[in-house]
């Protein structure tokens, strides 16, 4: 005999304000990557923060990033969460930006066997107008135009 159970669903839709770092999202739309830099202690933050955890100042400057980065570590996610089920496998990398911070993002357009610690990457803005989705990702560093997010080595 099948055992009885109670079925229940909880569905939460939320909207998270990004007011204080609005410039970051505007930047992405314009194909630019911005970090914040504390005017008091000089620390650079990416993802950007509106306040400085180090010196508690809230006077932050916006600086545009070159996107130049060096790969530290990576993984290939095969078993993905429910909300990413249509995306796996995907490569997640952490790389060190020339400007200081380490950043986590997807690493796209690369074969897993070609990945090596220390390789040069480029962090690039990503804008999918039809989904209104703004993001950023790593691609292999190269000298040609990558405005469309594809690295043509």
């Amino acid at each position, binding site marked *: 005999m099948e055992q009885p159970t109670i079925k*229940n669903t909880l569905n939460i839709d939320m909207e998270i304000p990004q007011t204080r770092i609005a410039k970051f999202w505007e930047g992405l739309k314009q194909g630019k990557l911005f970090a914040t830099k504390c005017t008091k202690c000089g620390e650079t933050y990416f993802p950007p923060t509106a306040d400085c955890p180090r010196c508690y100042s809230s006077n932050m400057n916006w600086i545009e990033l070159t996107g130049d980065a060096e790969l530290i570590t990576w993984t290939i996610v095969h078993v993905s969460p429910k909300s990413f089920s249509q995306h796996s496998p995907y490569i997640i990398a952490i790389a060190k930006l020339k400007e200081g911070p380490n950043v986590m993002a997807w690493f796209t357009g690369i074969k897993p066997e070609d990945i090596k610690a220390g390789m040069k990457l480029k962090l690039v803005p990503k804008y999918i107008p039809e989904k209104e989705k703004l993001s950023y990702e790593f691609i292999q560093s190269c000298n040609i135009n990558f405005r469309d997010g594809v690295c043509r080595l």
Partner: protein
Amino acid sequence: MGKVAVVGIGHTKFGKRSDVTIRELAFEAIKEALEDSGLTPSDVGFAVVANYGGFSEDMCPAPYILEYAGLNPKGAMRVEAACASGSAAVHAAYWSVRSGLTDIALAIGVEKMFQVDTPTAVELLGRAGDVLWEFIPFGTTFPGYYALIATDHMNKYGTTEEQLAMVAVKNHKYGAMNPLAQLHREITVEEAINSRVIAWPLKLYDCCLISDGAAAVMLASEDKAKKITDTPVWIRGLGSATDTGYLGRRKDISTLQATVLASKQAYKMTGIEPKDVDVAEVHDCFTIAEIIAYEDLGFCKKGEGGKLIEEGQTYIGGKIPVNVDGGLKSKGHPIGASGVAMTAEIVKQLRGEAGKRQVPKAEVGLVHNVGAAGQFCYVTIYGREG
């Protein structure tokens, strides 16, 4: 053993804070508590974060709040006791100092409820009730729970809708005087009684608000406290108790047994009696809750809470001024923040820093914080003298 004092407080503006993330909001309160105490993040030994959750993005909010406020690598945990989470954080922070493991502990309370729409907020709050036997089958809401309690109290003691409304009128009056409050509008008994029904017999003005907000209080051991500040506010008594989750399991639902027991513990620890309390913050999530709190805390006899507000005894100048910051009702009720914010308000009162809302010669203050429909209660008694 050594005493423990509050040596710094922070309290953000409550309301719809769609200008900030939960991390930015918590940062505001933490920054203020640090500045108020003259301490830096490196002085803090342990941080306790109160957050009910579900409304905001992080399932595990403490590390993100600590990182944003530069508090790593200090030890931390989140505590949750439904709407009493804030007081649970103050008690846990107190324990950590009193145990001798740390000299200075920070209790942080934060909630960002406006990130979801109202029906979802009602759903998430309702789920603090018995999800299996109350919420899933019957869609109980928090106004609904307190309405069940109100109906019973009215039937037993003749408490009236007018008396409920009078609580709202008082708390709106003081909220209008508090720059940090969500609402700044005085109301009349008529307005309150004629407002739309939320869960009969409770109407809009009987109910607390959906709020965003944060608060933080810095606790220090006796030795440290005396070095840090000339105006330490001492934690003199603490009590906590629980009651059944399923409302039907309670013998009498016109009283919150957890309040009765928690306050008895706190009074006993201090030797203070209800009549010695100069100013109180009580858990007025609904107007009926404030009336029942008067009774269960011993400010009046059982059944006479309605009379107490009718006589104006809980205004400044009355027998026992209650919620003169506006209360959850008018100041707002960002769940995890509330107990910490109540503490900050009592500290202001005992320091004599409450401005127009100052209770004259306030020496002893009490914070009463209820979780869910009386499932939890925390009572804390503060004094200018240790």
